[in-house]
Structure formats: C-alpha cells, structure tokens
C-alpha cells in the first residue's frame, strides 16, 4: 500500500478514548448508586443550542471518521419534533430565510445534510442588482458570458435547513438529545477521589439532569449563556434599526424566469431593503428600517403593505418618507406617485401582488462580536460568537464556517491525542475564524453606515464608488466571488 494512503488510514482509525471515560463513570455511578444517584454523565462535546450552527456541528462530528467515537449531547430549549416535522404547502414559505453561499452548501453536502434539505423549497440565484436609493448609482452583479447562470447563493428557509440537519443527526444516531429543557445553570465540577473535574463545565438542566462537558460548545445565540459562563465579553452596538421580513407573491417568477433568478437590494437612508427570490412566484423581503417605520409597516393592511414594498424599490426617499407618515391609503398614493417616477422596470423586482398572511414580522438589528471564541473547555459558534447586519446575507454562512473550522480543529486534536477541551487544542479554531469574521462584520457595518447618509459629500462619493466598481469587471467579479464564498479568502 502506498505510505500516504496508509498514513491516512491509520489517522482515520485513530479515534478518541472517551468511550473509556464514560464507561468508567458509569461504573462509578453504579457502585455509588445508593448515595450518589446524581453523579453526572461525562460527554466529550456538549452543544447548547439546536439551531443551524449547533445541529451542523453535531452532524459533522458524527459523520467524520475521526470524531464519530466522541460521546456527544445536544441541549435545546425548544421542541425539536416541530423542527423535524417542518412542512408547508408549495405556496407558503416561512418568513425567516437565509442566503447560503456555495461554500456553505458544499460543507452541508460533505456532512450528508444537504440531501435531506427539501430541494424544491430552495432557490438558487444567479444575478444581483444593488443600487443607491439616493443617487441611483447602480452595480449589476451578473456573471460574464462564460460564467452565465453560475449560482451566487441559495435562498432557503432556516427551518428547511434545520429540519434537514436534524434528520441527518438522527440518521447518524448516537447523539444524546435533551430538548424542551432549559439550562438552569452552568458551573464547574469538583475534585473527588476519581478525578479532578474542577476545570470541567457542568450543565444543569431545569429537569434536574446534570451533564459534564469535556468541551462545551455555545451555539446558543446572541445572549449566549455559555459565553457568559466562560466570562467572555462581547462588544458591539444596536443599529437602532429593525429588519422587517415577509413572504411576498410577485406577478411572475422574475424577469429571467425560473432558471435565472435575481436578488435585489436598494440602499435607502433608513437602511437597505432587499427582495430575494424563492421558488415560483415567491420572494422573501428583508427591509431594514427605523423601529418607528417598522411599526407602521407592520400595522398596515395587506394592500397598503404591498404598495409600500413596491414603492421601496421604485419611489424616491422623499416620497417614501411622506408615505411613512400616512396611517392608511398608501396603495392609492403609491399608484399615483409611481406614474410620475422614472425607472427601468427590468432592473427592479417585478410587482408584488400578495403578502402571505401572518408572515410580516420584525427583529432588531445588532452588531456583536465576542472578545474570543474559545475558553478553557469552551468554544463559541454562530450568533453566540458574532451577530452581523443582514445586508450581505452572511450571518448563517459565518456560523457554518465556524462549525467547519471547529470540527477540523477537533479532528486534529483527536488524531493527535490532545484533550479536545483545552484552550491549547482550540487555538487554531480561534485563529482561523476570528479575523475572517471580524473583517466581514466590519465591512457590512461600514456599508450600512455609508448608506445611512442622505445628503452631503458622501453621497456623490459613494455613488462614484458603486459606478466605478460597476465599470471595473475584475473588481466586480471579486465582490461576487466573495459574496458567493467561492473567491480567494481575503485574509
């Protein structure tokens, strides 16, 4: 056999010792059963949070030959059976959608989860139209002739993704799932005759159960209890903006039909408004705006809401500001003003004709970045580590990138006999992801701030910037490659 192949094989066979440690603890529990019924179970990896990042971590750990012997557990406060059984008719879509880059999709594919995501509910898009609502300067992200039809990203409902991931986790098996259980407390273990667990996190569930973690992974969102337990700070600010989401029905399946879909984003002084294609005649809306305007939008009748969305991609910021002051009657007002506004219909989304009942919702926009992603026996992934402005659709993809990197780090630790929980073993994860995420957070933050300016010298400058990018083919391709996650890594 060639030595390389043999080396590789022995590496894959080098699996972790921890079945021994759990066996030992079970023995211990048995012998003290009468007095110490509460002796907790030891797991190699305990993941708190069953969202996209947490579930993908478990699927990846269970599907990798190097880490498949690890004893793993998932703690999730929600009922996961609802996620697993996610189903909606073809004409309805959940309002929480994300853009998945090709590199996220290829990772999901490599861990065997993508095939379990309902493909008929996923919409790839091939072009992007981005323009400045104040100056009208525009950048058109369409691939040059040879790359025509290449996918920039895939629009997908978050529930469709988590449902597929959960099915994959269940297909692989051997994951202890504690769902519908809240974390009551996270503390540290004790020193006993059996060993010194003073450095090991113990998660206490409100059902009374206790689990000990060699490595505790916080995939537990922006207010991460795991991050707080580890004493890791988080810096950032609230944008004073809300993201208004809705599932929309359009007059057609888009100017390019089913096979050439376009994502649209217009920068308004209140924030960017984006319309992203879903299968068929449907699209999903993400409109970042002030809390007051978000409240007005949510209170409108479906007819007036539809008119406001159409106006957001067509009318001037001045017109929009006026329309926001009205409590009703936007539909007529928009119809009249649209007649007196010039725009190229082929470069903006088709007319919205319907909004899915109950799909209009909003959430506050924040920027947060943890001071570090690792601590002793602690790692943070996804929103627990960073929260980004949604304008570039990068949030969920950053989480998938974290998981891919963390699993690679754990694989290396296992095959080299390192304790996967200690900070030294986790250093490469933090080094690989921190700077990359920080740059993406910074870029999106600067873009948001740049476009929040309504007048003054910045407006012509940023328009010049957009026009220049638009004129320069190679630069534009660079931006597109970054957006689709296929480009050279910036760092």
């Amino acid at each position: 056999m060639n030595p390389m192949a043999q080396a590789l094989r022995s590496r894959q066979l080098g699996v972790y010792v921890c079945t021994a440690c759990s066996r030992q603890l079970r023995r211990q529990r048995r012998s003290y059963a009468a007095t110490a019924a509460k002796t907790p179970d030891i797991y190699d990896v305990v993941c708190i949070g069953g969202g996209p990042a947490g579930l993908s971590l478990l699927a990846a750990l269970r599907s990798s030959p190097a880490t498949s012997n690890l004893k793993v557990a998932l703690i999730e406060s929600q009922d996961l059976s609802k996620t697993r059984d996610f189903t909606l008719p073809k004409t309805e879509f959940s309002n929480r959608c994300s853009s998945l880059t090709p590199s996220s999709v290829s990772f999901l594919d490599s861990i065997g989860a993508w095939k379990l995501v309902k493909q008929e509910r996923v919409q790839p898009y091939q072009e992007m139209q981005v323009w400045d609502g104040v100056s009208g300067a525009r950048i058109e992200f369409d691939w040059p002739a040879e790359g025509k039809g290449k996918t920039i990203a895939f629009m997908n409902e978050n529930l469709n993704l988590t449902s597929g991931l959960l099915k994959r986790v269940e297909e692989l098996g051997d994951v202890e799932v504690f769902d519908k259980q809240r974390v009551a407390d996270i503390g540290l273990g004790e020193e006993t005759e059996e060993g010194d667990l003073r450095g090991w996190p113990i998660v206490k569930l409100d059902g009374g159960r206790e689990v000990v973690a060699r490595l505790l992974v916080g995939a537990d969102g922006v207010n991460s209890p795991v991050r707080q337990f580890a004493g890791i700070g988080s810096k950032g600010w609230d944008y004073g903006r809300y993201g208004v989401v809705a599932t929309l029905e359009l007059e057609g399946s888009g100017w390019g039909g089913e096979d050439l879909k376009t994502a649209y984003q217009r920068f308004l002084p209140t924030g960017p408004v984006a319309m992203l294609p879903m299968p068929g005649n449907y699209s999903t809306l993400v409109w970042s705006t002030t809390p007051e305007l978000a409240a007005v939008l949510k209170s409108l009748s479906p007819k007036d809401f539809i008119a406001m969305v159409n106006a957001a991609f067509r009318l001037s910021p001045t017109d929009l500001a006026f329309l926001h002051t009205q409590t009703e009657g936007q539909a007529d007002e928009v119809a009249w003003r649209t007649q007196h506004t010039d725009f190229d219909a082929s470069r903006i989304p088709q007319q919205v004709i319907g909004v899915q009942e109950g799909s209009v919702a909003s959430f506050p926009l924040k920027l947060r970045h943890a001071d570090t992603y690792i601590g002793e026996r602690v790692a943070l992934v996804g929103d627990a580590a960073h929260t980004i402005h949604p304008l570039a659709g990068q949030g969920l993809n950053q989480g998938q990138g974290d998981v891919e990197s963390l699993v690679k780090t754990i694989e290396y630790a296992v095959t080299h006999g390192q304790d996967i929980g200690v900070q030294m073993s986790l250093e490469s994860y933090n080094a690989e992801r921190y700077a990359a995420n920080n740059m993406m957070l910074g870029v999106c933050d600067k873009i948001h701030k740049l476009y929040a300016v309504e007048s003054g010298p910045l407006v012509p400058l940023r328009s010049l910037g957009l026009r220049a990018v638009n004129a320069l083919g190679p630069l534009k391709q660079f931006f597109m490659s970054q957006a689709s996650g296929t480009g050279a890594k910036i760092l």
Partner: protein
Amino acid sequence: MTPVPLRATSIRNLNLLLKTAPRFVQNQFRQQSTTSSVNPEEVSHFNALASTWWDPHGSSRLLHLMNPLRHDFIRTCHASQPDAPPTTGLKYLDIGCGGGIFAESAARLHSAGSVTAIDPSPEVLAIAKGHARKDPGLKDKLTYRNTSIEGLPIPTSPAEQYDIVSIFEVVEHITHPAEFLDKCTPFVKPGGWIVMSTIARTWMSWLTTKVVAEDLVGIVPRGTHDWEKYINEEELRGHFLRERGWNSPRVMGVVYVPGLGWKEVSGSERVGNYFFGIRKDF
C-alpha cells in the same frame, strides 16, 4: 573524563566551545560507565520547571506545540512497515516523560492499549500525575513511575516488551547517551519501534537553541540545553546499525517557524531539531 565546564552562552568561551565540542561528544559517545544514565544537575533543572509544565503559554509551550508532530512521526514509521501495524492495544513506554505531554496524548489515542511513563524527577512526576487526574479518561490507560530506566525490570519475554519506546527531547540531557540507549533497547518488542527526538549539534542549533531561544527571546528557560550534549542523526543511526538487530531507520527534521509553529523541513535534521525512529528486527 570530567566534562569541561563550558558556558555555551558566554562569548568568552565561544572559541573554546567551537574547538572542543565535536571531539568531546564523540569521546563521550564511546565512553562506558556504570553509573545511572541520569544527570543530577539536569534533574534539578527540570524540578525547577515543573510548576509551569502545563501552562500553555509558559516555558513548555514549544514542547506542547511539537507534541502533535511526534504522533505524525510515529505514524510515518508505522506506515513504512511492510506489515500493517496493530490498530488497537499498542503498548507505549515513554522514557523521560516530564510533565506527561506525550504520555497523556498517547493514552488518549484509540490505538493505544496502555502507556507506561517514567521520569527520574519526583517533582516533575508529581505534576504529571496531578495533571492526569484532570482527565478521567486517562485513568485506565496511563501509569506513571518515578524511576530512571535502570529502575525498571528488564523484560524477559515479548509480552513484557513495548510496541513503542519513546525518548523525546531526552538524549540531549543525558551525559552518556550511547550507554543510555543500550539500556532502553531491551524494552522494545521485536517489530516494535524506538522513537526519539533531539537536536543536531551544529553551529545553527547552538545559535537558535542557546543564543536566540534561551538568551535573546527567552522562549526556553536559560540552562535548559547543553549544546555539547547534542547528538547528530548519523551518530544515532550508526549506533543502532552497528549493532545487529535494527532496521528501517527514519528521520524527520523539524523547524519552529514563529507564527506558524513546528514544520517538517526535509534535510533540517542536519541543522537542528529532528525525530529519529528505528525498528527492532523480528
């Protein structure tokens, strides 16, 4: 012969060092002695370092960073065998285990059946034992013994011998390395490996380990190394191949690149740190 009291880091002695060191080490390699392989001064030096052994940012950081390469090297040794190595139940003997960086990691491998780790320094071994208690998974597989190699009973059958005898970063601290290695070899099972790592005795290694690492940057505690005790790869190879019973010597030179860590660099065994492994005949 009494060792010349050299202070490698003193410029005044540099000239003397350059003139005498190579011959000194050659003589030493041939020399026979009946005393223990352990140098008491070395033991007290490592006693003093014991408390920082497991601090990932402390004086042993370079050893922590090097440890994964030890496993990579053992894998390449195994991969070079014509017969497939066992995938489970491997017996390890780690000589001069220090705080247990390698011993713990070997015991965590699925392929390891048991690890016996020895060190002559009681303070260092206490640190090793205390640290191993922090991982309950190690308890059944890892045994520490406070002894030098002379204190272990010489095996009388292959069942008592070891698949892997490891001597990492040790021979450069031994006064009579040839004699020491001869004491280690009976512990290797036929078809098993003796693996070690050390530093080549070159002007480059003197510069990097003594002057830069100990004096200028301070990344390694001062007095950790005696450059004149460094051994070159061809000396090790010659030692084992002179005696019959050993085959398939392997070598891997490694270089520490600040910011990147330890990297395998082909040919660097002639310059600085390197791994050496050789297989015992059946």
